[in-house]
């Protein structure tokens, strides 16, 4: 890892403070900052019932290690000046931020590609599991085949 790269990963029950994360990177003198933020969707299912809550389970220890490995890899591959991955766990209401990836680099293409890499790989390489609650029903979300394909394009 080159000098001056700031890597931060967090698996937290608290809300994700996007503003603070951007401000932190700007304070470090970032040229360009790319972010991706994912939110709990309130998709209606076949019966018309929307998601009332999403619960995120994870593998403590292994999760943080996986995120750190991804962020470090991205920082090296795209010469980032900073990379942050923040993922929430626990119960969340629709509209809530689940995940934030932020990357800073001197060149915009590097920041944007690294951001896409991190969110793609996080979907297949980090041990999180989603459980949707719709009224009284709860079901574990199935992995999507498209996620494997999206992750594989970075090999």
């Amino acid at each position, binding site marked *: 890892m080159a000098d001056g790269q700031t890597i931060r990963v967090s698996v937290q029950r608290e809300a994700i403070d996007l503003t603070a994360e951007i401000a932190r990177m700007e304070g470090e003198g970032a040229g360009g900052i790319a972010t991706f933020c994912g939110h709990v969707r309130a998709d209606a299912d076949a019966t018309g019932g929307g998601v009332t809550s999403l619960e995120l389970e994870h*593998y403590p*220890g292994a999760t943080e290690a996986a995120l750190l490995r991804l962020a470090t890899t991205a920082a090296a591959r795209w010469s980032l000046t900073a990379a942050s991955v923040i993922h929430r766990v626990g119960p969340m209401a629709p509209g809530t931020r689940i995940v934030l990836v932020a990357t800073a680099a001197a060149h915009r293409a590097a920041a944007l590609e690294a951001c896409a890499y991190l969110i793609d790989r996080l*979907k*297949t*390489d*980090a*041990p999180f*599991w989603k459980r949707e609650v719709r009224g009284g029903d709860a079901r*574990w979300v199935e992995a999507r085949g498209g996620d494997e394909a999206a992750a594989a394009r970075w090999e």
Partner: protein
Amino acid sequence: MVYFSWVREAIGSGEELVDVPPDTATVGALVDWLATTSDGHARAFADRGRLRAAVDQAFVGLDAGIEGAREVAIFPPVTGG
């Protein structure tokens, strides 16, 4: 052993200590043996294609060895992000 998501729910516990039979070489063999220990384990492990594993917190295939492992995790494909 540690379990997550519906694997944990089917087994009814997120953690257990097991005495692995001495001839159990791989994660797959460990799963085969665990499936015989209770109805819950049998249900959790019914479809091997839907199982993923980690040995000492590193992701591995079901054919990975477990010699010297302190912690083996079994769980469904991940769905974060």
